[in-house]
């Protein structure tokens, strides 16, 4: 019987995952100590981007997609995600091209206050790494039908 690897159940943290999380935390802490516009900071960002690129170019795992009965719900769900992304992008752009910035904060201007301390900067860096790991490194699977 084939094992369903679509979504791992909660609480199935493997030792390798724990090691990766600890290493990523240390990496984020060290990287957060580098100043912007310096080569150490550039390299600290480039390394995870290159690692993610290796995983991102892997071909998609073949699959049959959702079952016919679920296609409608699946498409509605994709539409909902796209609508949310479009709304978020539109709101960010509206804020970006409005002034003054204090009245129309963008996501990056809001992040400035968080990133003005080493722990806040490390946390933001760790979150950025986490997003990359979830999107590109974690094994991709087809949705269950």
């Amino acid at each position, binding site marked *: 019987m084939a094992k369903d690897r*679509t*979504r791992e159940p909660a609480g199935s943290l493997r030792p390798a995952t724990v090691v990766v999380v600890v290493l990523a935390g240390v990496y984020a802490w060290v*990287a957060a100590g580098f*100043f*912007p*516009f310096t080569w150490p*900071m*550039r390299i600290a*960002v480039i390394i*995870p*981007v290159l690692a*993610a*690129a290796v995983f*991102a*170019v892997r*071909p*998609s795992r073949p699959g049959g997609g*959702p*079952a016919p009965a*679920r296609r409608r*719900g*699946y498409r509605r*769900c*994709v539409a*909902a*995600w*796209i609508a*949310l992304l479009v*709304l*978020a992008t539109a*709101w960010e752009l509206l*804020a970006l091209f409005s002034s003054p910035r*204090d*009245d*129309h*904060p963008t996501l*990056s201007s*809001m*992040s*400035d*206050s*968080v*990133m*003005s*301390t*080493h722990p806040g*900067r490390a946390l*933001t*860096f760790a979150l*950025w790494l986490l*997003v*990359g790991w*979830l*999107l*590109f490194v*974690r094994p*991709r699977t087809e*949705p*269950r*039908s």
Partner: protein
Amino acid sequence: MTTRGATMAVFALLLAAGIVLEVFVRRRPGLPTLGEVLTRRTAVRIGVLLFWAFVGWHLFVRGSGAFE
């Protein structure tokens, strides 16, 4: 409510909607998570990779908020 407050409230609302939708689809087999939508096709995945790389570069390499 100030303009700043309204701007931040909309961002918070969109984030909350995303979290609710993600939780909803994870409880219903067959519905795609945000990650599955963004990484299903190779071309889209590479576009998302470039955007993710831009966010990292923008926040950390060219960021203005560091150690102010």
